[in-house]
């Protein structure tokens, strides 16, 4: 009985929890984190249960309040968003474990309660975006997550973060406005807001300008939110200036959900028939993706600040996922979905390590981090493993998704684009290696040790980060390897069916 309502609990319980955090936090600040952690762990457990349920019994449809669509709001969990749900909640759980010490260090003490409330709401908004089957509901949850994100980015009170947050707000609101316009156009054309119904009713109206403009508005709106080049300008500042745990969540969870929303709109609402025949955008998407891959990587190489470097790397990696969309065949999309999981895990780990370094060293500038591997060996080893996955060294998951993407591109005959993809992984090697060189071989023999970390030689005792922060980092790094080794299981049971669903199959 309880299980039947699990989808709506995924959203309502966290909202209640955030109120609880507010109330309990008033009393004693230390209650905030345990409540938040338990809520996220519950959500993660629920996501796993739901995914198994979907794999066993097919798509889950849940009518909120018992009202049937199109009057009521429907929550839909199929193999595609079940998979995405698990990815985002995995990362949220890891981030929440990580958050305890990170928040203590970076957020002013009197703002801790508000931070956790907003953090919980951010995750709620993103979860809601993932499981909703109603397109306006998507917009509502999008805005919930966006507004909390705007606030959280400046939570650490760094001066530049206010500007970063403001710029993100402006761009994000324009995006939301476009999305709202798109939804309005779809409603005008069909009279329904339910995604499934739209998919059925739209084909009759494919020729209408209304539908074309709806498509364009929605695509551009979600592209801004997903930071697809060249609409990515808000991203580097936002990622670099936020508190570490916020960066982890927005770079992994938020970015992935925005991409999910894009895929949902393109494949489920508009279906492949539209994007391939009536309004062929895949060619343009592929081109833009290729540019994003190269431009993001090149910009990353030039950065001195570790977080900015990783932020531009994210722009490049989102290009990979859009690449899958541009090629739009079974293999490439499987690679794209695998990359959604893989990149979330890899980037989450990398940003967490950046946070660890800030925690212990107080800086994230590469020029000040020479030889940091000696004082923080585990963190740097985790970075090396996740970095190897970014470059695409087998048998990590980064390699697996790259393999599928190249195979898909070859199969479709996009030889040049496949080459771009491969060059992208070389460029990734360059910027990952920037850190590896500095961290492991930075305080080189034959150079003065003036710049080395921990000034005097005998101050070199290990100052590794606390365990509660290290544990998620190490887990995520190991996952890069484990998921890569177990990729076949993932493909067969989860991702394969998800892609078949997207492309219009059973």
């Amino acid at each position, binding site marked *: 009985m309880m299980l039947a309502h699990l989808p709506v609990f995924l959203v309502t319980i966290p909202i209640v929890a955030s109120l609880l955090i507010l109330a309990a936090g008033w009393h004693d600040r230390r209650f905030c984190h345990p409540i938040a952690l338990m809520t996220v762990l519950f959500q993660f457990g629920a996501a796993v249960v739901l995914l198994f349920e979907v794999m066993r019994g097919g798509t889950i449809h849940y009518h909120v309040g018992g009202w049937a669509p199109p009057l009521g709001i429907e929550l839909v969990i199929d193999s595609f968003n079940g998979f995405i749900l698990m990815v985002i909640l995995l990362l949220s759980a890891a981030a929440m474990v990580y958050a305890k010490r990170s928040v203590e260090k970076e957020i002013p003490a009197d703002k801790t309660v508000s931070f956790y409330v907003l953090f919980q709401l951010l995750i709620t908004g993103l979860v809601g975006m993932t499981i909703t089957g109603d397109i306006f509901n998507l917009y509502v949850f999008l805005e919930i997550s966006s507004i909390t994100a705007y606030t959280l980015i400046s939570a650490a009170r760094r001066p530049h973060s206010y500007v970063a947050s403001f710029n993100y707000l*402006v761009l994000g609101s324009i995006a939301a406005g476009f999305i709202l316009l798109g*939804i309005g156009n779809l409603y005008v054309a069909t009279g329904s807001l339910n995604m499934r119904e739209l998919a059925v009713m739209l084909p009759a109206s494919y020729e209408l300008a209304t539908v074309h403009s709806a498509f364009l508005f929605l695509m551009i709106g979600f592209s801004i939110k997903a930071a697809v080049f060249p609409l990515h300008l808000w991203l580097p500042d936002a990622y670099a200036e936020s508190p570490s745990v916020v960066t982890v969540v927005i770079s992994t969870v938020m970015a992935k959900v925005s991409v999910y929303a894009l895929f949902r709109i393109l494949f489920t609402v508009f279906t492949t028939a539209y994007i391939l025949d009536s309004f062929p955008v895949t060619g343009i998407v592929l081109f833009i993706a290729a540019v994003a891959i190269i431009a993001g990587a090149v910009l990353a190489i030039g950065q001195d600040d570790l977080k900015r470097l990783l932020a531009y790397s994210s722009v490049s990696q989102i290009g990979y996922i859009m690449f899958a969309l541009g090629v739009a065949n079974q293999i490439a999309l499987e690679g794209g979905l695998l990359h959604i999981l893989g990149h979330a895990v890899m980037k989450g780990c990398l940003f967490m390590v950046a946070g660890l370094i800030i925690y212990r060293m107080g800086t994230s500038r590469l020029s000040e981090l020479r030889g940091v591997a000696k004082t923080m060996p585990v963190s740097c080893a985790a970075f090396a493993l996740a970095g190897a996955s970014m470059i695409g060294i087998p048998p990590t998951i980064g390699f697996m998704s790259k393999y599928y993407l190249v195979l898909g591109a070859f199969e479709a005959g996009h030889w040049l684009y496949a080459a771009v993809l491969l060059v992208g992984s070389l460029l990734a090697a360059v910027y990952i290696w920037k850190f590896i060189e500095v961290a492991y071989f930075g305080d080189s023999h034959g150079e003065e040790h003036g710049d080395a970390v921990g000034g005097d030689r005998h101050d070199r005792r290990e100052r590794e980060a606390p365990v509660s922060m290290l544990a998620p980092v190490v887990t995520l790094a190991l996952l890069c390897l484990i998921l890569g080794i177990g990729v076949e299981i993932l493909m067969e049971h989860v991702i394969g069916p998800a892609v078949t669903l997207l492309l219009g199959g059973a």
Partner: protein
Amino acid sequence: MIEAFFELFLARYNYWMAIILMLIGLYALIAKHNLVKKIIGLNIFQTAIFLFYISFGDVKGGTAPIYLPEGIDALYVNPVPHVLILTAIVVGVSTTAVALALITRIYEEYGVIDEDELKELVRGRR
């Protein structure tokens, strides 16, 4: 000729007004340097979208979608856009609130609310 003109502009004046307002709002959002003016532009942009929604929900001769004594037989305008826009207005207000709070903080920190001067100061502080 007059027919076509009538068709294109006057019959659809609501959409045209919405578009013009949207463009004004976007212009303010992008081109104005003062941060507060940008937010005003954002509000205009969002309001234009709201007007767009409400206007297409209009039914000729319909009345506001609140139950009259006649019940369901009376002619109402489409209530769904109204509901959607109520939500969107709340969203817009929240966004504005956050934006204004940020502008206050920016002013406290940097002493200016002009975009260009702000860029200079941020670059200088880096």
